[in-house]
C-alpha cells in the first residue's frame, strides 16, 4: 500500500493555523503535492501538444491534407469520433447498467462475485485482440444485419446503402467499442450499486416498493454520480481508442451512412498515419490530437456539471 509513503517533511509549508500535528501536515502536504504533480504533468503534455501542433495553424491551408486547411481536414474526423463513441455509449450504457444491476441486485450472491471478477478481467483484453475479434468474428456476422438495414431503412441517412460487403463499418466499430467499454461502465456502476446504504433500500421496500421501484428510488439516485463517472470513463476510452477502430473500420471519407465503409476517428487516424508521416503531416496529426483532447474535455465538463447540479441531493454527506 502506498498511503504510508510519506515524503520527508523538509518542504512542509509552515502551518497556517496554530499547531497542526506533524503527521497531518506531512500527509496533507503530500496529497496536495500529488495533485499539483498532475497539473505539472498535464502542463507538460499541453505544452508539448501546442508546440507540436502550432505549425499546422501557421501553415498554408493548401499544404494540409485535402488542401483546404486544417478545419476541413479535421471535421469529418470529429464527426467519426463522435459517431463511434455515441453508438458505443448507446449500446453499452443500458447493457452495462443491466449487468451491474444483475450482479448487485438480481443474481445469487455466489454467482455475482464470480461474474464481477470475470467482468473486471474483460477490461484487460488488449485492444488489438478486440480488433482481431471484430474483424474475424463480428464483422461477418453483422454484415447481413447491416445489409438488411440498408435495404429496408435506407431512407434514414445513417442507414443509406449500399452496405459494406465486408461488414467493417462505423456501426461495427461502434459495437466493438461498446464491448470494450462495457466492462468499465459495469465495474464502476456495480461498485456503487453495491454501496447503496441498506437503510435506503429498506426504506423503499418498507413502503411497499417492488424490487424495481426500490432500485429506482434508492439505488439509482444514490449511484447516479458513480454511474456518470463510469460512463465518462467509458466514453473517454471510446473516444481515444485507436487500434480496435483502426483495425475494424474500413476507413474513408465522410459519409452520413453508418453501414457503408467510410469515416474515420481522430485516434484511429493518428494511429494509422502517424508512423509513416513526416513534416507538416505529423504536426497536423498532433493538432488533431489536440482537438480530441478538447472534445473529451467538453464531454467531461458536461458530466461534472450534470453531477454537481444536484449536489445538495447527493448520497454521501
Amino acid at each position, binding site marked *: 500500500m502506498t498511503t504510508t509513503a510519506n515524503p520527508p517533511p523538509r518542504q512542509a509549508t509552515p502551518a497556517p493555523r496554530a499547531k497542526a500535528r506533524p503527521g497531518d501536515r506531512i500527509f496533507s502536504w503530500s496529497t496536495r503535492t500529488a495533485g499539483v504533480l498532475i497539473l505539472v504533468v498535464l502542463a507538460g503534455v499541453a505544452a508539448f501538444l501546442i508546440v507540436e501542433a502550432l505549425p499546422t495553424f501557421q501553415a498554408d491551408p493548401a499544404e494540409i491534407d485535402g488542401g483546404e486547411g486544417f478545419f476541413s481536414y479535421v471535421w469529418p474526423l470529429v464527426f467519426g469520433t463522435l459517431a463511434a463513441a455515441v453508438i458505443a455509449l448507446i449500446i453499452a450504457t443500458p447493457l452495462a447498467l443491466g449487468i451491474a444491476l444483475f450482479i448487485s441486485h438480481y443474481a445469487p450472491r455466489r454467482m455475482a462475485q464470480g461474474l464481477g471478477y470475470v467482468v473486471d478481467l474483460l477490461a484487460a483484453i488488449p485492444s488489438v485482440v478486440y480488433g482481431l475479434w471484430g474483424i474475424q468474428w463480428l464483422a461477418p456476422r453483422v454484415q447481413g444485419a447491416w445489409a438488411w438495414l440498408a435495404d429496408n431503412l435506407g431512407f434514414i441517412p445513417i442507414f443509406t446503402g449500399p452496405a459494406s460487403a465486408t461488414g467493417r463499418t462505423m456501426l461495427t466499430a461502434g459495437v466493438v467499442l461498446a464491448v470494450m467499454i462495457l466492462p468499465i461502465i459495469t465495474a464502476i456502476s456495480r461498485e456503487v450499486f453495491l454501496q447503496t446504504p441498506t437503510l435506503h433500500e429498506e426504506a*423503499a*421496500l418498507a413502503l*411497499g*416498493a417492488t424490487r424495481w421501484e426500490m432500485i429506482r428510488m434508492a439505488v439509482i*439516485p444514490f449511484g447516479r454520480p458513480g454511474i456518470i463517472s463510469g460512463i465518462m470513463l467509458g466514453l473517454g476510452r471510446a473516444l481515444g481508442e485507436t487500434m480496435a477502430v483502426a483495425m475494424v473500420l474500413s476507413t474513408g471519407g465522410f459519409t452520413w451512412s453508418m453501414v457503408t465503409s467510410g469515416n474515420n476517428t481522430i485516434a484511429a487516424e493518428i494511429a494509422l498515419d502517424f508512423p509513416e508521416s513526416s513534416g507538416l503531416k505529423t504536426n497536423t496529426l498532433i493538432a488533431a490530437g489536440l482537438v480530441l483532447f478538447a472534445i473529451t474535455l467538453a464531454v467531461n465538463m458536461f458530466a461534472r456539471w450534470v453531477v454537481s447540479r444536484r449536489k445538495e441531493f*447527493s448520497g454521501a454527506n
Partner: protein
Amino acid sequence: MSKRIDVGDLNVYYGSFLAVEGVSMAIEARSVTAFIGPSGCGKSTFIRTLNRMHEVIPGARVEGKVMLDGEDLYAANVDPVTVRRQVGMVFQRPNPFPTMSIRDNVLAGMKLNSKRMRKAEADDVVEQSLKGANLWNEVKDRLDKPGSGLSGGQQQRLCIARAIAVQPEVLLMDEPCSALDPISTLAIEDLIGELKQNYTIVIVTHNMQQAARVSDRTAFFNIAGTGKPGKLIEMDDTTKIFTNPSVKATEDYVSGRFG
C-alpha cells in the same frame, strides 16, 4: 383501517441458525404493542417478519404463520410487496431518501401506486401526512429542500410521515427513538399516542419507561445464552408486565436486576 395480527408458532432462521423460536402472540388493532428485552434476543428480527422485511437479509427465512386479519402473510402466492403496502415500517436510524426533497420523500410511497396525482391532491397528502407526523409547522416553508438537511428527530418524523402517507394498516417501529434526543423522543412518543387512533402499532424499544409510557400491551423477549434462539417469555397488558409479571425473568428485567 388497522388490522390485528396473530402470530402462530413462528421460527426465524438465518441460514441454518435458529434465531427466534416458537413465538405465538396476538396483536390487537388500534393499540400499541411494545417489544422489550435484552440486546440480541431477536426483537428486531421478529418485528421484521411481520412485514417480511427479513427477506432483505440474505439467508433469512421463517417457519410458522403470521395472520393479518385472518390472512397468512406467508401463504403461497402472497407477494411481500403487497404485505409491506399494508404493514409500514419505521427504522432505528432515520432514512429519508437523500436524493429527494422533503415533499418527494413524503410522496415516495404514494407515487408508487397512483399513476397520476393532481398537484392539489398531492399537496393535500403531503400536508396531512406531515401534520400527522407533527412536522408540518417545522418544514412547510422548505418542502423542496433535501430531507437529509433536517435534524435527526425531524428526519425520523419525516420517515413516519412517509410511512403513514400510504395509509398502512399496521405501523412497525424498530427502536424509532434510539438515535434521538429526549425532546425529539417526546415528540415521537406523543405522535405514537395520536397514531394509535388509526393504526395498529408495534414498537421495539430498549427504553422501558418508553414502553411503559406508550404501549397498551408489552411482550418480553429473552435469550438463554449466546448461540441460543431468542424466545417470547411473556406478553400481557403493559401495567401488568411492569407491576406484576408472572415470570421471574421478566420481573428481573423490568426492575433492572437483570445481569
